């Protein structure tokens, strides 16, 4: 699975990069790499079986009073 993931990302780079380099769109290149890295960083641990904390925890913590009010009590 990790190998497959790396392959997929390599494929995406292979499809994306040449066009950008040819057009010398370096800003775009940076943005693309940023998102690809983010995607890779988020997916690799999952594929390897680590449990990442959900980003929702922060939101849940902040909105706890309201969500407690909203929780159905039966």
């Amino acid at each position, binding site marked *: 699975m990790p190998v497959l993931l790396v392959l997929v990302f390599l494929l995406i780079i292979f499809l994306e990069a040449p066009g*950008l380099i040819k057009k010398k769109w370096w800003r775009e290149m940076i943005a693309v790499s940023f998102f690809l890295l*983010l995607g890779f960083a988020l997916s690799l641990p999952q594929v390897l079986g680590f449990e990442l904390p959900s980003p929702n925890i922060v939101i849940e913590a902040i909105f706890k009073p309201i969500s407690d009010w909203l929780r159905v009590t039966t």
Partner: protein
Amino acid sequence: MLEDGRISSRQATFLMSTMIIATVVLFVPSITAKYARQDAWLSIIAAILAGLLIARLATTLGLRYPDKSIFEYPEDILGKWPGKLVGLLYVCWFLHLNAEVIREYGSFMVTAFMPETPIIVFILVVVSIAAYATINGLEVFSRANEIFLPLIVGSVIILFILALGQMNFHMLLPMFDAEPEDVLKGAIAPEGWFGEVAVITVLIPYLNKPREAHRVGALAVLTCGGLLLLDAVGIIALFGPNLVEAWLITTLNGARMIIVASFIERLEAVIMIIWVTGGLIKITVFYWAAALGSAQLLKLKDYRPLVVPIGTVLVSLSTLLHPNISDLLQFLTSVWPPYAIIVFEAGLPLLLLTVSLARGIRGARV
């Protein structure tokens, strides 16, 4: 401009309607019935009214800068870096929202139709289709949506009519049984969805006639509201409030109840069509908004190279967000709506509008 497509007001209305309907008809009747029980329709009407307000707020703000999107004009209003921050927040919100929707999409397919299939399959398929649509641009998916929306609305209405025979409208009685507080609570979830109409702040610069944006927002909310009302009333009349609140995806169960002269049975497929097409359009809209937003924030020449990388983020984020479906539902019921409404659908637009009005600045006129 990054996106060279222009859409008509009708296309924009259709786009927003599909976007909201898709998720609303599936989950909301059950969530609302949890609080307001047979008075769910009351909650929905309240939500429609609030949705109209939000739409008005978003369009008023957007029309002050008719040639800019919400990723750009905060810079004019708040100054460069705070403005960029607001734009960035919106990009993140669209990404997050989209990941949630994609997760819902997968969960729905897995729960209702193909429990043996891993959820990642549906996520991958839908994200790649959405990427294809996004790359084709606003005009193309708006046009495709002009085919999908009539299909979706037609299906909902036909399902309603077919199920009419099994409905018992006594279930809606007694009216006004729920406490006002519960009605209010019930209104928050649909309101969170109606509030997604705030995405019109991204669409306004691409409208043929930006002046009609007010109408677009209002019509979209009314269309979805009407359909949701029909759906919720039908479902409650079919099952009674006790069962509706117990079920995960009540509309699906409603469709399964339909028996027409022992010939047509189990119309789940129709629900699947509604959800798969509608959900796809919704995901595409936010996908496009996120890609466009990042490109506008970073002042890129094109948003298209970003689409596939953003897709990888969406896929990994959507599998990361929730460990299981009850966590997803809990989040959608009690955390997401207040979060979305308070911060992004009402809060930030209100802030931007106030500052803009106070400083008396506005963009080009149309």
